[in-house]
């Protein structure tokens, strides 16, 4: 009847019957592929392209993990999840990793039994309005009395309530389970404003019938650190996902790209030799439970963090989002990879 219900049911059954094993790496290797939970369709993060392949920053992160585990970035199967079903799907073992523009909060890290492996995208919540229909609106503080479209079960929904309460404003929440439903309702004029993470607003704007009519308001009302999450209680798997993310950052910092990774292997620089696992008697990869060329595999498969960013949400994409807070720490941003040694 309803796909969400089927997923929820299947996930619950998993929670009941006990599919969630303690050794995810072992399970993934046995299966021969990585099961990755992604968004049902958010341009730039995870959405199927015209060939039906999943593209985006979140999808590519899963490919990076698959490359680290199998040496083959294509060994991923994607499960599109609504905001509502995502945690149950991860908890029950339906997916091995949740890479679905999910905000890292303490509640999710503790009570929900998840572990966040890092922040692949620093985001913040904003508002978008139709400037044709509402020409005078230039600030979110003018939105008192507005109807606002939002997706259910998100931190966005909670921040929205807090923001309007803090500023003593009224609003009508129109809450949808799926991103697509919220988009359609906003486009049809059911709501005056649309709220989600700013990156999402730029993506949604592209899907509107007249993208140029819509403006993103300047206010950012929350911190939304988005990152991949895994289940608690499996430190080995948590380490693999965490260090895959750090490897992406460190390779960008070292200037190792998809194009030059093979020739970089013959470098004399000890730091790079260690990173690429070509140092004599290295154990970095095997200690992680992988092979020593895991970093090479990641970069060969998907490129470094900068390449993934530019390709999916940056200048090489229709979204054209500036690196901003997502630049490396050496360039004034927040992305910082601990040393691989």
């Amino acid at each position, binding site marked *: 009847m309803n796909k969400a219900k089927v997923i929820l049911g299947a996930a619950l059954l998993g929670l009941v019957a006990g599919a969630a094993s303690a050794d995810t790496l072992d399970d993934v290797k046995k299966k021969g592929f990585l099961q990755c939970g992604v968004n049902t369709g958010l341009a730039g993060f995870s959405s199927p392209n015209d060939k039906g392949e999943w593209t985006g920053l979140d999808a590519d992160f899963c490919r990076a993990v698959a490359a680290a585990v199998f040496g083959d970035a294509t060994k991923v199967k994607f499960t599109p999840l609504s905001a509502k079903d995502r945690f149950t799907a991860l908890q029950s073992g339906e997916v091995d990793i949740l890479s679905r523009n999910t905000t890292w909060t303490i509640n999710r890290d503790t*009570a929900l039994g998840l572990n966040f492996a890092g922040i692949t995208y620093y985001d913040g919540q904003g508002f978008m309005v139709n400037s044709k229909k509402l020409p005078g609106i230039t600030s979110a503080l003018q939105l008192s009395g507005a109807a606002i479209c939002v997706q259910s079960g998100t931190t966005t929904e909670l921040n929205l309530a807090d923001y309007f309460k803090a500023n003593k404003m009224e609003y009508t929440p129109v809450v949808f389970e799926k991103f697509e439903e919220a988009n359609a309702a906003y486009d049809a004029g059911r709501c005056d404003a649309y709220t989600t993470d700013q990156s999402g607003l730029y993506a949604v704007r592209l899907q509107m019938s007249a993208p140029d009519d819509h403006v993103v308001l300047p206010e950012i009302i929350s911190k939304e650190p988005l990152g991949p999450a895994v289940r608690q209680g499996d430190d080995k798997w948590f380490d693999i996902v965490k260090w895959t993310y750090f490897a992406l950052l460190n390779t960008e910092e070292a200037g190792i790209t998809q194009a030059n990774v093979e020739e970089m292997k013959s470098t004399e620089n000890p730091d790079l030799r260690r990173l690429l696992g070509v140092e004599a008697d290295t154990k970095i990869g095997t200690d992680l439970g992988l092979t020593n060329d895991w970093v090479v595999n990641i970069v060969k498969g998907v490129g470094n963090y900068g390449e993934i960013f530019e390709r999916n949400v940056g200048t090489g994409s229709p979204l054209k989002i500036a690196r901003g807070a997502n630049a490396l720490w050496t360039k004034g941003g927040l992305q910082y990879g601990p040393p691989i040694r």
Partner: protein
Amino acid sequence: MSVRQWKGNDMATQDVLPAGRSEKVSLLYDPRARSIFFQVLIVALLVLGGWWIVENTLENLRRSNIQTGFAFLKGRAGFDILTSLIPYSSDSTFGRAIVVGILNTALVAVTGIIAATIIGFLVGVGRLSNNWLIRKIATVYVELFRNIPPLLVILFWYQGVLSLLPNVRDSYSLPLSSFLNNRGFYLPRPVWGEGSWLILVGLVLGIIFSWFVARWARARQVETGQQFPVIWTSVALILGMPFLGFVLGGFPLTFDLPQKGTFNLTGGANIKPEFLSLFLALSFYTAAFIAEIVRAGIMGVPRGQTEAYSALGIRPSQGLRLVVIPQAMRIIIPPLTSQYLNLTKNSSLAVAIGYPDLYAIGGTILNQTGQAIEVVVIFMAVYLSLSILTSLFMNWFNAKMALKER
């Protein structure tokens, strides 16, 4: 039934056997012992299976550090809800949010059941009409709505009809200061002033008087055969008495009219398009099934009944009301109950259009707290209770309508 027969056969075979041998039959071949053994075995397996599921679930939850129990219901919800029948804000608890969801589900179920019954009876009678056009329209209606999944009907109303309405600035102005736009239906909201309790008193008195009039009229008809226009008297009483109260109270009623604000119309009462589309979709969809049930019920009354009342000189309209419908009701009510249950359960499709019913709100809570099993248990308990309540009411109604055998 089958067990009884089996025992009977057993007795028969034992009769044939010599009396002494039957005592020596081993326990292994004793049908009674065997039947007890298997029943005990099945109960044990069920209990064991249940225990295994519960134990396994708790173990898995514990292993992934997920809290269990219903304590989370006392926490602050933190999210807002589109429409609520009781006061609710983001400061309310999760438990109250669940109650808001239950009430919203109940609201759409009850109004939907009433509307579906009315439409269903009209269409069902229409299918048996002697008028060609009415008959065909009713047939097309039934075939159309019966063969489309309910989710599509809901989306049809939400995206196909209500979202095509004009935006707030170009609202359709309707009579009595009401407006229709893509934010819903705006009506003047009555504000009851001092002395309006007299209206309520008038209404109650009107209903009580009507009941006495009906009783008196029936007694008189039984005694003398004279008829009394009970319906018109009741209507006059039920409308007239509150009006009398209204006048006595000094016209204590004013209206809060919808006004144009920055974004939306403010003031007045607003029926949201989410509720409207769900209500319309569920009523129209279920009415198609009810129409068929009604048609089956009427056709199930033997033709001889019609001929009999005609022979007695009763007019067709009266005959339908006094002879055919009471008998048809007995066929109609049991399947009607199933349709009411279906409508209630289909209301969970509200999640597709953002109507905050129990399933939508519960889903949000599930996501914010991660208490999947607890929330699903609440879902099951509430839908089960609603269904049982509906069934109990319909069973009572069925018993009341059943043929009274004397």
